[in-house]
């Protein structure tokens, strides 16, 4: 569950208008929201707040039943991040690691047993169509393969919240549709999903409420 009430966020050492201003919305657990808006509207900034990479400068944010403020203990923020799966626009893979090691990272950071990690990683990579690329270094993958690896890494630990920033940019249409079906399925199974996109075809394929941002302000709150 996500609940924002009057949340603003200002970049450090930057005066003037905040990057995000007075946002208030709620997404129930298992909810799916598109995150829409023109470039520079604040979609990535909002996702970074929801991923606890940044903390609100004003207002209250409740994520997965935990209040997130500048006073929240670091240990709690770490535990929250472990329950969130994030697909970045630039994938953010470890270039020196194999596909398998990249996908295994969230599980290893949670100290899961190695045999369990092996099973989970194998299954998810097979599902995203990278079953034959598991030993390849991430730096040698194509853009589409990197994106699928990033998606696999974001969902392998079955997070309570999935955030995706333009997750289908580098994917071909059948793969994009497959991914969208997966997100829909995860949402119906109780995972909250927020997907930022410009792809209208995707939105038409999976009609769900949308959060619309313009110049850091919410003009449509997904209700």
């Amino acid at each position, binding site marked *: 569950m996500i609940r924002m009430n009057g949340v603003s966020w200002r970049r450090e050492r930057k005066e003037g208008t905040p990057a995000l201003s007075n946002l208030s919305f709620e997404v129930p657990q298992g909810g799916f929201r598109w995150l829409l808006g023109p470039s520079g509207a604040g979609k990535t900034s909002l996702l970074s707040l929801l*991923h*606890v*990479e*940044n*903390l609100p400068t004003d207002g209250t944010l409740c994520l997965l039943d935990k209040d997130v403020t500048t006073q929240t203990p*670091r*240990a709690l*923020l*770490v*535990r929250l*991040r*472990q329950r969130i799966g*994030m697909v970045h626009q630039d994938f*953010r*893979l*470890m*270039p*020196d*690691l*194999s596909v*398998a*090691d*990249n996908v*295994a*990272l*969230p599980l*290893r*950071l*949670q100290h899961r047993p190695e045999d369990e990690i*092996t099973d989970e*990683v*194998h299954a998810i990579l097979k599902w995203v169509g990278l079953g034959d690329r*598991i*030993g390849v*270094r991430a730096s040698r993958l194509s853009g589409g393969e990197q994106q699928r690896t990033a998606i696999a*890494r974001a969902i392998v630990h079955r997070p309570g919240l999935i955030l995706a920033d333009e997750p289908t940019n580098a994917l071909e249409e059948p793969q994009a549709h497959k991914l969208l079906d997966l997100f829909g399925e995860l949402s119906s199974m109780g995972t909250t999903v927020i997907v930022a996109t410009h792809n209208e075809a995707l939105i038409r394929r999976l009609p769900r409420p949308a959060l619309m941002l313009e110049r850091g302000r919410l003009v449509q709150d997904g209700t």
Partner: protein
Amino acid sequence: MALPFSGRKDGLSLSEALPDRSLFILVAMMSFLAALTLTGATGARTLSTRWAGGAAQLLTIQVSEPDQPVAGASKTDKTAPQTRADAVLTDLAALPAGTQVHRLTQEELARLLTPWLGDAGKTALPLPAVIEVRLAEGHEAPLDLEQALEAHVSGTVVEHNAEWSSRLRALAESLLACAALALATVGGIATMITALATRAGLSTRRDIIEILHGLGATDSYIAGRFAWRTGGLALGGALLGTLLAMAPLLLLFRMAAPFAASTLQATSTAMPDWRTLPDLLPGDMLAGLAALPFVAAFIGWATTQFMVRVWLRRMP
């Protein structure tokens, strides 16, 4: 089914991120210096202790013309000492119980004078009798001892080691303070080197750390990864530096061994045999040298933990 995991579990690849070779070499050099300083400090402390204790209790008495009769002594009294040396020994017998009085034999005297006179046994020079007096613990020589001996056997010289020992002790303590300062400086430099290496590693791995942080890596996990790496490098470097320092240390110790004799009787110009040298090395010095690599490793580990944790504080 097994997966082809690369063994690089988290992508930090610290062997490439940290300036491994330079950190290893610099720590080895620092440890080499520390080992030499530590040995100097041990030597200064040993001398200080000796001069504060043993040497201060020691008197050296020289009796010129030792085999001549005492001037004015009765020749008819058979119980009276016959020679000047015997007369002094008789007087010294009145010192407090527990006092050890030993007149150096001709061989001991010859060995003592060999560095200055060559084979002293063949010299034509008249040699005095040398009497070594070791006072019992807690006792001091009577203030009027020299006057009393002079009055009885004229020309007797009493050398008070206590006077010199206090000056030498002050010198040894100053050396000890300098050694402690040098060790602290070496430790400080090692800390700075580790901090700089860690900072370099952090800046080259910034993106990777941000990804790990985003995936839920704890501060202690990231700091621990860096700290074990630098701690390991420091341990290896310090081991090498300490081992390299052992060669000059053993040589120096062998050369210094003859000066460490606690009595004139034991004094010898001969250097100890290499094989017996390890038995002569002070235990506390060996313990200090053995601890050096671990202290270096701890400095590396703790400095890196601190640096990384402070750096991570910039992230929420």
